[in-house]
């Protein structure tokens, strides 16, 4: 079952600083769709090395949204991509969908 994103980590770091929380959410909202697009483009072009670079960037957002198991999946997928191995692609993209849906409603 896919984990649900949450703001627990951000709230811990913010210490109640709502402006900070808002700023972070805005960054995710802005950057995540751009990074997903780049990831898809690199994957379609079979540029696995660059796709892995993008997964590396997205990985941090996954952890920030409290997705601990998914973070491990992203680590594995980043390594897999460097070897042109795509077994975890579907699982990784499900994580992306769940993040996009989560931030959309924030």
């Amino acid at each position, binding site marked *: 079952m896919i984990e649900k994103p949450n703001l627990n980590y951000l709230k811990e770091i913010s210490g109640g600083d709502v402006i900070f929380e808002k700023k*972070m959410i805005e960054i995710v909202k802005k950057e995540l769709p751009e990074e997903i697009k780049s990831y898809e483009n690199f994957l379609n072009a079979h540029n696995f090395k660059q796709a892995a670079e993008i997964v*590396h960037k997205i990985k*941090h957002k996954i*952890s920030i949204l409290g997705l601990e198991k998914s973070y491990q999946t992203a680590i594995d997928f980043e390594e897999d991509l460097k070897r042109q191995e795509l077994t975890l692609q579907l699982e990784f993209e499900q994580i992306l969908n769940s993040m996009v849906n989560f931030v959309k409603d924030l």
Partner: protein
Amino acid sequence: MKSIIIDDEEMARAILEQLISKTKELSLIESFSNAIEAIKFLNQNSVDLIFLDIHMPTFTGFDLLQTLKNPPKVILTTSDKNFAIEAFEYNCIVDYLVKPVTQERFDKAILKAKSFNVVSSNSKKVEKDIIDELYVNIDRRLVKINFATINLIEAKGDYIQIKTDSKNYTVHSTLKKIEDKLPYELFLKVHRSFIINTTKIVDIEDNSVLIGNNVIPVSRSNRPELMKRLNLL
């Protein structure tokens, strides 16, 4: 301590900025999204502490360190534990923080930074306390265990079992907690339930490693790190 942040990711910078703003001992002088700008700044200004991302495009954190003649104290930040081995080659590195950086781990790193002395760049020696043992609470006694005698540590529910050359100790703790106390260069988490002393490896098969007469599973995600640690012929 006057600090700067060098990280290409805006979120990572924002998180560190937030953590620094809550820390009395630190003042943030500047944040940089690339290493080149930071080098220019460091050539003209002195700082006490750098929060340095390792994984940056074109110019990595390690590249930056090599350009600095007398680097200040450095706390590395990384999403990738694998880089930490290289960190031990630099005598200015106080600690490394794996992203996402938690408040607790950040505070520990700052404590270390306060008592850390950078030895001159010509010296390879790192001037910090070398701890080679761990004290664990067993039946209200603090028992000393030397790191070198530990073969492996296994998670068992709410407990961990520390297996040494002569004895096994069962302690109420977690692998995560003990992992933070162990010297990185000796120990490696190879599976969610096992940390091994890499100097005690007898042999390695596809998905397992033999420590003494214990066959320990190695998970797929931890295997690359294990392989990196080996002096392979």
